[in-house]
């Protein structure tokens, strides 16, 4: 597969190496001449110096035959422009962009970026996993539907302890999909009673996350 990576900071450089290592053809575009020179020293003719959001540079990189363009510069506006130019003017099959500001996530998707990687969100979910108590852990984002798969552990003092799944009043667009008990995982059938320490996996929308969290962990 032919992939164009725009932005050779730490993320772009590692990404380029990883893609090359699994046998993809890669062009890495970097604006800064010094940084680009360093990439060229390390990876050879893969590096192309230029502004990845400009049509001339994308043309030189052969954007029209690229199956994937990945924009990972440190500026959200540049990453959006790269994807929009690739898609709009070169019909690149798929575009992927890094966003720093979480509020740009939905905007980028609205404006046609196929896959949005939210660095803040990723770091946050890693931190959440490390924080022991009462965290709502983001497991996966279902991008196309703007939904999230989350997990949390039922605390001992939660109002839902001892209640069955059918007694729960769930927020809109939120569903429990799996309950993991000490004995093992089980589907959330109506009579299943929740106990302290059960791990619950649920699907929800970003706006209802807090409500879901309160439903499952709130004290009466």
């Amino acid at each position, binding site marked *: 597969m032919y992939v164009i990576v725009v932005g050779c900071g730490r993320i772009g450089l590692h990404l380029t190496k990883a893609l090359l290592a699994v046998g993809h053809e890669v062009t890495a575009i970097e604006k800064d001449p010094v940084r680009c020179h360093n990439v060229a020293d390390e990876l050879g003719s893969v590096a192309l110096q230029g502004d990845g959001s400009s049509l001339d540079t994308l043309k030189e990189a052969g954007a029209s035959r690229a199956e994937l363009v990945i924009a990972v510069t440190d*500026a*959200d506006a540049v990453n*959006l*422009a790269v994807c*929009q130019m690739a898609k709009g003017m070169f019909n690149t099959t798929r575009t992927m962009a890094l966003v720093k500001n979480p509020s740009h996530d939905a905007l980028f998707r609205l404006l046609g970026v196929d896959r949005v990687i939210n660095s803040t969100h990723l770091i946050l979910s890693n931190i959440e996993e490390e924080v022991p108590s009462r965290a709502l852990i983001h497991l996966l984002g279902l991008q196309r539907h703007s939904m999230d798969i989350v997990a949390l552990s039922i605390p001992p003092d939660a109002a839902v302890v001892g209640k069955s799944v059918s007694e729960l009043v769930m927020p809109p667009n939120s569903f429990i999909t799996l309950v993991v008990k000490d004995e093992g995982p089980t589907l959330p059938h109506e009579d299943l009673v929740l106990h302290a320490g059960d791990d619950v996996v649920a699907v929800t929308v970003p706006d209802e996350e807090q409500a879901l969290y309160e439903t499952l962990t709130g004290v009466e």
Partner: protein
Amino acid sequence: MQVLILGCGELVQHIAPALIGESYQVIILDEHQRCPDPTPRYPGAETVPSTGVLMEDLQRCDIDDVDAFLALSEDDNQNAMAAQIASHIFSVPKVICHVGNPSKYNAYKNMGLNVVSSTATVSENMLLYLKDLGCM
């Protein structure tokens, strides 16, 4: 009429006083806050430090109530993103985006943005002028 302008280059320095003269209410978003002393230069215009691409900044400027948004900074990518936020997220009735690089003009036009390019306009005028002078 309320107009929100992103940028503070020569274009803005020219257009802001003109709009103020026509009794528009003007707010200028300037990333570096390097507007040359906005108060005496543009009496009545408010200057806010912002890149124009942060939704919180735009909300603070009451973007929901503005009649027009002009993205006129010197950074094409920033202009395009700010203009698309203004039109797609905040539904500002009139949005105009400036791009310096004329090759991007069509790209953004195809995406439904109202685009102006000073470079393209000046080049066209130059060529017409040269033709008039018999140089071409």
